[in-house]
């Protein structure tokens, strides 16, 4: 019998959501089998079994958020092994904790355990064990307020319910009771009354990824002094170059996009402008010797930035292939933490959505991000005449702590020149 714990799947992960269980209670499990998919703050990741046996318990149900180190399931030697709830202090502690986090899942799993032993076997733990850990004071107060401890999430060590949790729950209960009374019983009271301010709003459940986006971008906009450099490039040559490259790659099935060309060009130019390939962290400035370009990808529930590592060293075809692969994984929520970390510069492209130009928010600790607009025909003055040319608007957002205006401008200038003479991208 061994416990499965919520793993730490990324550096910044503090808790994970059980995305889905791939093994049911009672299923045979071999080492290496995927047990469960876990949504971290960055991605949905598969989590494998480390030993053979049977999944005898799912302590955390799907959709449930669980802190790192919390037991999420149990693997036993036989399909009808009963998880030990009544063992020694350590055992009962963790058992109680499991149940606290997942009362529903617990009921389900005990039900589905084949009835090889009569009820009392789990009964000894049923009274004491099915109760979440709680301080004596919390238990007494819960009784006084008529609250069920199972409904209360403990904020103490190991999820212990303490006085503060009961007081908060009692307050909430008080707040809700009069409202429920005053409203017609037919209309089920919406939970988010606090936001019901005439806008007919309802709270949307947020994912971990959403939370991380909110936190990181707020930090970026609040802490990173952004400045912006804009430049429009003539994209005729780029367009022709792309067509030429794709013709040559036709046999391989690989296609290169304008964005791939821009990513590769940015990597090549960054190599010559190392000051832009840097990070201001704390009060230290780091210059990165690798050029790893992150590519912003819109996904269903937010935005992720998979990283093409050593972008400057990869052939164009490989960048195309790699970025397609990463974008696919991103949409499926299957990016690994490694595939999302280590970026030194980012490219965000909203051109396909018809955006002319925009100012992107820097993805810390990178020092700059390039916002790419749509390729479109514009009337431009060329050799004294107004002609229609394909153009692309580029806007570079720069962290002024790491990079000064002229340095950023020199980078953007060369990037524009390279893109206008695209053979230089691969030279």
């Amino acid at each position, binding site marked *: 019998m061994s416990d499965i714990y919520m793993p730490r799947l990324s550096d910044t992960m503090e808790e994970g959501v059980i995305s889905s269980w791939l093994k049911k209670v009672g299923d045979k499990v071999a080492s290496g089998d995927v047990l469960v998919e876990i949504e971290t703050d960055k991605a949905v990741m598969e989590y494998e079994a480390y030993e053979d046996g049977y999944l005898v318990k799912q302590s955390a149900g799907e959709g449930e958020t669980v802190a790192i180190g919390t037991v999420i399931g149990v693997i036993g030697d036989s399909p009808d092994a009963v998880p030990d709830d009544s063992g020694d202090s350590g055992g009962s502690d963790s058992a109680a904790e499991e149940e606290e986090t997942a009362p529903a899942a617990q009921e389900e799993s005990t039900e589905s355990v084949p009835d090889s032993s009569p009820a009392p076997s789990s009964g000894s733990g049923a009274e004491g064990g099915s109760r979440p850990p709680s*301080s*004596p*004071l919390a238990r*007494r107060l819960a009784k006084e307020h008529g609250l069920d401890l199972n409904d209360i999430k403990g*904020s*103490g060590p190991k999820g212990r319910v*303490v006085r503060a949790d009961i007081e908060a729950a009692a307050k909430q209960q008080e707040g809700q009771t009069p409202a429920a009374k005053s409203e017609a019983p037919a209309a089920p009271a919406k939970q988010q009354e606090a936001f019901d301010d005439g806008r007919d709003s309802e709270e949307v459940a947020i994912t971990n990824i959403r939370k991380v986006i909110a936190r990181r971008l707020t930090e970026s906009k609040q802490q990173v002094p952004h400045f912006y450099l804009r430049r429009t490039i003539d994209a005729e040559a780029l367009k022709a170059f792309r067509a030429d490259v794709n013709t040559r790659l036709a046999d391989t099935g690989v296609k290169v996009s304008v964005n791939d060309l821009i990513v590769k060009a940015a990597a090549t130019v960054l190599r010559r402008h190392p000051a832009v390939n840097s990070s201001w962290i704390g009060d230290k400035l780091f210059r990165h010797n690798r050029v790893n370009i992150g590519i912003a990808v819109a996904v269903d529930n937010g935005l992720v930035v998979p990283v093409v590592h050593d972008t400057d060293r990869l052939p164009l075809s490989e960048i195309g292939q790699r970025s397609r692969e990463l974008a696919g994984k991103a949409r499926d929520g299957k990016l690994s933490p490694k595939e999302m970390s280590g970026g030194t510069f980012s490219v965000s492209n909203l051109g396909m959505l018809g955006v002319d130009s925009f100012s992107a928010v820097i993805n810390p600790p990178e020092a700059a991000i390039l916002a790419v607009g749509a390729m479109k025909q514009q009337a431009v003055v060329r050799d004294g005449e107004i002609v229609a040319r394909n153009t692309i608007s580029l806007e570079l957002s720069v962290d002024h702590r790491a990079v000064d205006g002229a340095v950023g401008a020199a980078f953007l200038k060369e990037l524009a020149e390279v893109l206008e003479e695209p053979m230089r991208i691969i030279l």
Partner: protein
Amino acid sequence: MSVITYRQALRDTLRAEMHRDENVLLLGEEIGVFEGSYKITEGLLKEFGERRVRDTPIAEEGFVGAAIGAAMLGLRPVVELMTINFSLIAIDQIINHAAKIYGMFGGQTSVPLVIRTPGGGGQQLGATHSQNIELFYSFIPGLKVLAPSTPAEAASMLRAAIRDDDPVLFLENLGLYNTKGEVPDDDTTVAEIGRAAVTREGTDITLIGYSRMAMVTSQVAEKLAEDGISVEVVDLRSLRPLDRETIVESVKKTGCAVIAEDDWLTYGIGAEIAASIQEGAFDYLDAPVRRVAMAEVPMPYAKPLETAAMPSAESITTVIHETLSAVGRRVG
């Protein structure tokens, strides 16, 4: 009201009691001509003469036994043991005679004896001279054990000890002798034996100590008040009888407790307090009772090691923060 040292409060009280009752006499090593190793008995030989201030041989078992006999015959001897460590030589007299005589012989005679003795580390006196073994005596029915933490308490509790008809171990502390505090002029207050005191009221957590630790806990509470943490400080004052009621009432109010003790943790006085708390205030506890005590080693001689081995304001503060954090108050 005047501000005097703990040492001075003891000396003044001894003198006053000797004036009040001619049956009060002092016995101990170097208390007369040398005026006491810690100068508690300074001037008393001159004032009261050799009959009432008796220098003894270095033979604790002998002079404690003599004092017990004197007490049985109606005198009120106050013995000074140079440090509590030396009580070990007299422990048979204290435990098997002083503590037992009243009960074993059907109450024919009581033993109105006081044994004054300082405990405490922090003076670089080494492992054998730095102990806090009041626990040994607090364990024994038939004894009373008092442990005042301030000059005023030292005075009123010494008065109570001398006037009590039972044998009293009166615990002083090397670290308290030079501390100062207000003592009422012409004070004749006699402390009630067996009462703890809430020396500072608070609502967030109960902090329990005695003797030197009662002083440290007060300082910790004062410091934490600056951070908005309201600590209730309980000074046990009497280790036997133990005032469980005051402890329990305080914990019922605050929901959590930290005990600071100048002795070893295992089987220590804090263990008894913690047990009393769970017996009396179980349904009021919001967090496990925590104890801060000495490292489980013979006291090191080297100063940094000695300091590290002793409970400190910092270690107490840390445990308070941890306890408050466990009940949902994120502080510090």
